[in-house]
C-alpha cells in the first residue's frame, strides 16, 4: 500500500511540474474562464433586469466560468497521458515496478489540483468584481466541491478517450464534447427563460445544467438543498459512467496482448 502512495505521489508531482513548466497548458483555459466572467458579465448583465430574474448576473455567469475552467483543468489529465504515450515515457514507466494504477492516477490528481487552484483564483476575481454569495464563504466550499466533482467526471472521460486514441489529435477532438456540455444548457439565461423547446429539452438532460443550478442556488439563493443535491446526483452518475470508462480503457491499454 505504501508503494501505491509513493508511486502516485511521485507521478502527481511530475505532472504538476510539467503543467507549471508549460504555461500553455493552463493559460488559455484561465483566459477563457475570465473571458466568461468579464465579457458576459459586462455585456449581458442587463439580463438580470428582466422580470423573474433573481440575483446578480455575476453570480449567475460565475458557474459557467468555473465549469469551463474545470473542464480545461481535468481535461489536461488525458492530454498528459497522451503526451507520455507519444514520447515513450509511458513505456519507460511500465518497465518499472511502479503500481500500474498510479501511472494513470497521477495525471488525474494533478489535473484536479490544477482545477482547484483555478477555481479558487476565479472565485477571488469574482469577489473583486463584487460577488456577494448568498450563503457566505461556506457556500464557496460547495461551489468548489461541485466543480471538483464535475472535473473528476470529465477527467475520467478524458483519460478514457486518450488511452484509447493514443494520439494528441484524437484526444483533443474528444474534448470538444465540452461545447454541447457547456453551451446546450442554462448557460446565459435561466432554464425557464429558454424558449426553443429543443434547447430546453437538451438542457434538461444535460448534466451540466444541474451543476450550474446547484452553484447558482448556493450563490444566489442560499442553502437550497434540492438543487445542491441534484447537482451532486448528476456528478455521481457522470463519475460512475466516466470512471468506469476510464478504468476499462486503462485495462485495455495496460493489457499485454
Amino acid at each position, binding site marked *: 500500500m505504501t*508503494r501505491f502512495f*509513493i*508511486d502516485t505521489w*511521485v507521478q502527481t508531482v*511530475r505532472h504538476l*511540474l*510539467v503543467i507549471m*513548466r*508549460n504555461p500553455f497548458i493552463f493559460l488559455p483555459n484561465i483566459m477563457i474562464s475570465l473571458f466568461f466572467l468579464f465579457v458576459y458579465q459586462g455585456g449581458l448583465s442587463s439580463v438580470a433586469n428582466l422580470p423573474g430574474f433573481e440575483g446578480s448576473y455575476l453570480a449567475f455567469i460565475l458557474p459557467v466560468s468555473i465549469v469551463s475552467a474545470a473542464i480545461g483543468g481535468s481535461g489536461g489529465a488525458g492530454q498528459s497521458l497522451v*503526451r*507520455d504515450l507519444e*514520447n*515513450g*515515457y*509511458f*513505456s*519507460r*514507466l*511500465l*518497465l*518499472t*515496478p*511502479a503500481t500500474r494504477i498510479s501511472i494513470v492516477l497521477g495525471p488525474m490528481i494533478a489535473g484536479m489540483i490544477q482545477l482547484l487552484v483555478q477555481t479558487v483564483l476565479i472565485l477571488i476575481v469574482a469577489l473583486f468584481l463584487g460577488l456577494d454569495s448568498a450563503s457566505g464563504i461556506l457556500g464557496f466550499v460547495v461551489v468548489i466541491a461541485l466543480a471538483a466533482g464535475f472535473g473528476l467526471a470529465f477527467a475520467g472521460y478524458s483519460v478514457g478517450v486518450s488511452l484509447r486514441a493514443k494520439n494528441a489529435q484524437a484526444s483533443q477532438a474528444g474534448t470538444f464534447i465540452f461545447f454541447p456540455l457547456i453551451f446546450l444548457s442554462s448557460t446565459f439565461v435561466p432554464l425557464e427563460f429558454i424558449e426553443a423547446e429543443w434547447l430546453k429539452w437538451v438542457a434538461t438532460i444535460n448534466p451540466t445544467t444541474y451543476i450550474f443550478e446547484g452553484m447558482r442556488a448556493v450563490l444566489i439563493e442560499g442553502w437550497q438543498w434540492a438543487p445542491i443535491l441534484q447537482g451532486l446526483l448528476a456528478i455521481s452518475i457522470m463519475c460512475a459512467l466516466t470512471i468506469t470508462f476510464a478504468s476499462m480503457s486503462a485495462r485495455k491499454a495496460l493489457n*499485454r*496482448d
Partner: protein
Amino acid sequence: MSAGTIEVYDLQKTFKGDVQALKGVSLSVGKGEFFAFLGPNGAGKSTTIQILTTLISPTSGRALVSGYDVLTQPEQVRLEIGVALQETGIDPALTGRELLEIQARHFGMSSVAAKKRAVELLEKINLTEDANRRCGNYSGGMRRRLDLALSLVHRPNILFLDEPTTGLDPVNRIAIWEEIRNLNQQLGTTIFLTTQYLEEADQLAERISIIDKGQIVISGTPKELKRRIGMDVIEMHFADEAAATRGAQLLAGLCKQHTQQREIVKCFVEDGTRRLPDFVRTLDAESLQIHSLNLAPPTLDDVFIQVTGKKEGTA
C-alpha cells in the same frame, strides 16, 4: 542460481490480424554473457524484447528471465532487468536529474538514496553539467546516454538494449559501445542487445543469433558464424552499374549466390582461390572491364546476406 540468465522456449507471438511476428523462438543466455540478436527490420527482434521485458505477452511458449516467468511473475522480472527501448522513454519537460530521481523512487529507493544515485549516474554518463537542463533541449546522443542511465538506476542483472545506437553518429555510437562493454565486463551484467548493424554485433557480442521472419536462422560466436558459411567471397568492382549487372548475369552460373549493389558484385563460392581464374576468363571473353577484384573470407555481413538473403539495414 538463475539470476542474470534468460531462457526462452518456443516463443510465439501472433498479433491481431494474424500477423505472426514470432514463429517459435528458443534461446538461452548465460549469466554475464553478451548476446546479440541480429536481424533486418520487422524480423521479430523488438517483439522478442517486448515479451522478455513484460511489455507484451507471448501467444504461446515460455520465457524465464532470471528464473522468473515473464507471464506470471512480471513484477519480479521488472526488478531484474534494465531496458533501453528503440525509442527513448524521456519526458522532455523534466531535467535529467529529475528523471533519474523519479526512476529511482519507482524502484523503491528513498528520496535521499534516489538523489544520491542520480548524482552518481549523471557523473558516469558525463551529464553532470546538463543535469538541471530540460531533456527536451538535449542532443540525440545525450538523450541516449540518459536513457541508458535510466535503465541502470536499480543496478539490474540483465540489460536489454533494443537497437541502442540506431540514428547515432559514430562518436556517440562508440561512446555507447564503451559504456555497454564496461557494464558487461566490470559488473558482469548480462546484455541482450538487438541490432541491425553487423559491425555492432561483431564488435561487442560473444554470441549472436540471426533472426529473420520470426525465426532464428543461425546462432553461434561471430567466428563460428563466419566459419559455418564455409565459403569465400569474391568482390568485383565494375566500371558502372550497367557493366555490373551484365557481369552478374554472366557469373551467375559460377556463384552459389551473388548480390549486386550498384557497380559492386559479390559472389559466394567454395574454394575461391581455385575458381578465380574462371571468373577472369568469363569476364575477359566478353571484354568486361573490372576495376578491382578481391577474394576474402566471409565477413559477418556476408553471413547475414547468406542466411537472410538481404543486405543489412534493408527491410
